[in-house]
């Protein structure tokens, strides 16, 4: 009976021998890759959370239309109707001068006493417009604000998304920088794995020679080094993920302790399971790429 050739055990044995015989090289390599992967994971963690939080803020788009103090009642009614008819506006709230003062007083809390000295109410009446985030881009909000500013009876239009626009621009820059950063780290990782394998190949050239002499095929000789690359990449990315998770938990606790009233700490999230799998695959892929690069230094007899 012809049996199916069994290569798994000898290949795993050769791989384990390679790793066991060069613990220092492997340890250094795994550590350097882990640091590179950790930097990468911290970048993704910061970017993901920042863009999610900014997106959440963006969904709460408000435009405040401050009105002239002497605006007539019918003009106010016209303005309200005008605003309601705008596609971007979801809801509208009129805040009278008195209401504005009352709101301000509430925010001052213990310091409200100083308001008693004011000769008259300095706050203007306003219309608070809540916009539909789905239909209004930041550019739309700016356009809308300019349009409202031209209306009779409008003193000033304020929208918080102006600084959000800057934040988005900043995030976009961070994103492109991140791609370069990730590409650089990936390249570095590939070279580290390749160099480790090359060192391993050099120190094991006698064994490779013997393997060829006893009739090992080229893939049989090369496979343990591929497995070594996979091992290094996967273990390093697991290590990096573990460290990133520990760092993430510590940072979240620290942030919560610093600003307990601010819910941002609770809204921070670690990677999704899908991202974790992708990240591990990236580590494995980098290990394979390192092997492929080192295989240019060939496994021939």
């Amino acid at each position: 009976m012809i049996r199916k050739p069994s290569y798994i055990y000898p290949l795993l044995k050769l791989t384990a021998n390679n790793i066991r015989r060069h613990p220092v090289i492997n340890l250094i390599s795994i550590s350097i890759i882990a640091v590179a992967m950790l930097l990468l994971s911290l970048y993704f963690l910061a970017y993901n959370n920042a863009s999610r939080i900014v997106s959440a803020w963006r969904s709460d788009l408000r435009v405040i239309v401050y009105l002239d103090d002497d605006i007539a009642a019918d003009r106010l009614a016209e303005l309200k109707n005008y605003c309601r008819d705008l596609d971007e506006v979801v809801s509208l709230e009129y805040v009278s001068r008195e209401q504005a003062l009352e709101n301000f007083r509430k925010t001052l809390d213990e310091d409200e006493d100083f308001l008693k000295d004011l000769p008259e109410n300095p706050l203007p009446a306003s219309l608070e417009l809540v916009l539909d985030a789905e239909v209004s881009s930041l550019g739309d909000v700016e356009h809308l604000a300019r349009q409202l500013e031209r209306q009779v009876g409008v003193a000033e239009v304020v929208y918080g998304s102006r600084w959000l626009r800057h934040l988005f621009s900043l995030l976009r820059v961070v994103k492109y920088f991140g791609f370069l950063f990730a590409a650089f780290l990936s390249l570095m990782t590939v070279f580290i794995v390749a160099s480790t394998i090359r060192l391993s190949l050099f120190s094991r050239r006698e064994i490779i020679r013997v393997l060829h002499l006893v009739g090992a095929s080229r893939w049989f000789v090369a496979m343990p080094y591929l497995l070594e690359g996979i091992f290094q990449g996967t273990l390093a990315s697991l290590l990096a993920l573990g460290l990133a998770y520990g760092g993430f938990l510590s940072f979240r606790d620290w942030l919560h302790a610093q600003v307990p009233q601010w819910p941002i700490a609770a809204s921070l999230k670690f990677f999704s399971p899908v991202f974790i799998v992708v990240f591990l695959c990236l580590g494995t892929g980098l290990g394979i790429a390192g092997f492929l690069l080192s295989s240019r230094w060939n496994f021939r007899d």
Partner: protein
Amino acid sequence: MIRVFHLNKSYNYPDMVLKDVSFEVKRGEFVYLSGPSGAGKTTLFRLLFADLSPDSGQIVVNGIDVSRARVKSIARLRRRMGIVFQDYKLIPSYTVFDNVALALEVTGYPRSRIQKTVWKVLKTVGIERQINRFPPQLSGGEQQRVAIARALVNSPDLILADEPTGNLDYEIADEIMQIFNTINERGTTVVMVTHNRSLLQRFKKKVFYLDRGQLQAYVWPDAC
């Protein structure tokens, strides 16, 4: 088993190491490749298992044109031959068992049968008691036995040996030669490189005598 036609080889042209070498080794034969140092014996030996490529000419081993064989065919060819070296070429960090088993493992031999097969071949060469030792813990003769066991473990049709007794004393060399004789008697073709005339006299076989890269007509040891 082996056919060599008009083989030429140089490392530094036009200084030819082998010049128009032709010979044939029949299946089941035991032949020596002999000659003085620098005659081209080891070069010819390495050409036989495609460790070197000839400049011109043809080498056919076991039906495979070694001089034009692809890497895959060379690996397949080497699995059907056993190669023994003067310096043994054992892996020092592997046990005797692992060194011998390696030749089976590269062929995908079932793991369950490796132990039994290795034990059997180690017993044949009389080294089974050292199965768990490492090569540096063995004497030269014992290491050569392990190397022979590794060459035999795949039941090859052909054994190539380069000065297998070169590092061994007289008595141990005779023991090793007895092992090669036994292997040959079981039907395996043996080609042995040696410059040791006393060995040729004690174990008389057909000799291909090389001198300055040229093969003399094959002779019997008495004529060397």
